[in-house]
């Protein structure tokens, strides 16, 4: 038994060294996920502030209208497109969704009507069918703004009002979801694309066949690969965490030891899928189609690039059972919500279940040539 583990140790040691000598492997294992991290991190960087692109068409020359126009142009929420000055131009841009809505101030807007003390008027918000949501939101924003202005002019008592208050409790940002998803993407990439590229090549060259004439057992070979994948995977993910914390201000709330244990668990389960595919395939042509069928649903439905809460409910139920989903959810729950392993037993159970299934298949279908 001691000899059996010496075998595993030597294979693990030398293959891990080989990983660090191989520039291509380093790029796909470490560089590639980092590129995605930077791209998605930048995309999510300003997603906290909502803004609308609008056209402002002012037909009035009252001083109030001028003042109001200036206010709107200075607003952070409303981005006024300066090129648009007529309604037909605005309609044209709206039809192409280049702007969300048009605000029209009619000619008499802001005039003081005869017999009244204060200026008055009605602004119009125009939007197209496909922009209903932003049009209505914009309507309420302007409405609120006018109410504030009205209050300055007429000092009537407002018996009811709404006060909004921001809670100090931290909520998840879009980046928290994206980051967990990208970790999942990295785990998927290393665990599946690694074996399905390497194994058919090793078979073609007869390297596995040569190994099969030695007493080396399949389980010893698999365990040495698992250890290697866990090592390189942890290094790759550690670099991603460092970048996310340093550059994108990720706050890790959970316990690092629990996080590492959970990630290793997830890496080994996903690797099992790669071992089953690569171990079964005789050549690249066999490996590619089957792995695409298995990888793509996980890539798009497990929450790698877009969070699962955006999906319709029935799809959330189905995608919840994909192998990668509990890995991504678990990482997010530990890392950003700070829960303990005991709180994510459903995820751990699902991963364990998949692990049994994929490794049973992997051992069953493995062939040396």
């Amino acid at each position, binding site marked *: 038994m001691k000899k059996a583990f010496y075998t595993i*140790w030597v294979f693990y040691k030398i293959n891990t060294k080989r990983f660090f000598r191989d520039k291509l492997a380093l790029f796909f294992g470490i560089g590639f996920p980092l590129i995605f991290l930077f791209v998605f991190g930048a995309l999510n960087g300003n997603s906290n502030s909502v803004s609308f692109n609008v056209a402002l068409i002012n037909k009035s020359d009252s001083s109030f209208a001028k003042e109001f126009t200036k206010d709107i142009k200075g607003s952070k929420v409303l981005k006024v497109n300066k090129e648009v000055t007529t309604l037909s131009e605005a309609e044209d841009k709206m039809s192409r969704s280049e702007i969300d809505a048009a605000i029209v101030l009619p000619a008499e807007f802001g005039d003081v009507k005869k017999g009244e003390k204060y200026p008055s008027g009605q602004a119009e918000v125009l939007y197209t069918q496909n922009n209903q949501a932003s049009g209505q939101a914009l309507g309420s924003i302007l409405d609120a703004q006018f109410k504030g202005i009205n209050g300055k002019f007429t000092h009537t008592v407002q018996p009811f009002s709404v006060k909004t208050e921001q809670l100090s409790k931290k909520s998840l940002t879009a980046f928290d979801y994206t980051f967990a998803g990208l970790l999942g993407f990295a785990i998927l990439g290393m665990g599946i694309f690694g074996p399905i590229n390497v194994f058919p090549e090793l078979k073609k060259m*007869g*390297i596995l066949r040569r190994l099969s004439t030695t*007493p080396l057992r399949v389980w010893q070979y698999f365990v040495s690969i698992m250890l290697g994948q866990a090592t390189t995977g942890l290094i790759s993910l550690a670099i991603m965490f460092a970048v996310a914390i340093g550059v994108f201000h990720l706050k890790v709330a959970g316990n690092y030891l629990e996080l590492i244990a959970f990630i290793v668990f997830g890496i080994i389960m996903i690797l099992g899928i790669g071992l089953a595919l690569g171990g079964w395939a005789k050549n690249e042509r066999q490996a590619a189609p089957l792995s695409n069928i298995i990888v793509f649903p996980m890539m798009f439905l497990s929450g790698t690039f877009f969070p699962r809460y955006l999906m319709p409910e029935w799809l959330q139920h189905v995608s919840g059972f994909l192998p990668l989903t509990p890995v991504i959810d678990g990482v997010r729950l530990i890392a950003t919500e700070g829960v303990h392993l005991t709180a994510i037993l459903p995820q751990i159970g699902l991963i364990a279940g998949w692990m049994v299934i994929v490794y049973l298949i992997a051992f069953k279908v493995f062939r040396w040539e």
Partner: protein
Amino acid sequence: MKAMIEVKDLKKRYGDKQAVDGISFDVKKGEIFGILGPNGAGKTTTLEMMETLREIDSGFVKIDGIDVKKNPQKIKYIIGVQPQTPAFQDKTRLTEVIEMFAAAYGEKVDPMEFLRDVDLEEKATNFVEDLSGGQKQRLSITTALVHGPKVFFLDEPTTGLDPQARRNLWELIEQVRDKGISVVMTTHYMDEAEILCDRIAVMDEGKIIALDTPKDLIKALLKRGFTKKQHVEQANLEDVFIDLTGKALREG
């Protein structure tokens, strides 16, 4: 003396083709045994069944008294295998290749000692992809011997090598034999078989059609009244070809 390898009525069928059709032979300790024959004669299949790589349909192979079919894992500890085209994972140093193969047997060895045996100690820290074809063959031979096997199998070891590398390999194979290891090899080259092999089995269509020492096989042929046509030609077709196309090397 008791035989190291005992092959009895060995059979293998692929679909409707009887690849190996009931062959029997013995290999003694410390001899080089050659299996000759045209393509498709069943040489490689025979070798692969002895190496545990192919399922045996019927008959048996015993190596040092152990049945290959019943106990393949035990057999793996006492055989060494040289594939037709040796290949190694790239970005691996020569010392690491030796270390890994020894580890596959659960053993720890001094890699330099094994590299010295095949004259590769200067390349010890190079990566395997830097080796020439002949050097890869030599590395492959020494990796097949790390665990001190009793039998060494080679499948067409000199195919594709230049004349110098071939002769070097022959010497190495003889050295292996001189250590008391039984060598079983297949080959297409008659000069190789004649120089190297102590005994030869000639196979055709899955059967052994002759089995003896090279010398006795030739003697038997001459006894049957065979005479080689003796004539001296002033030129041959190659001379014609060179005369027509010139001696300069061509691109591509």
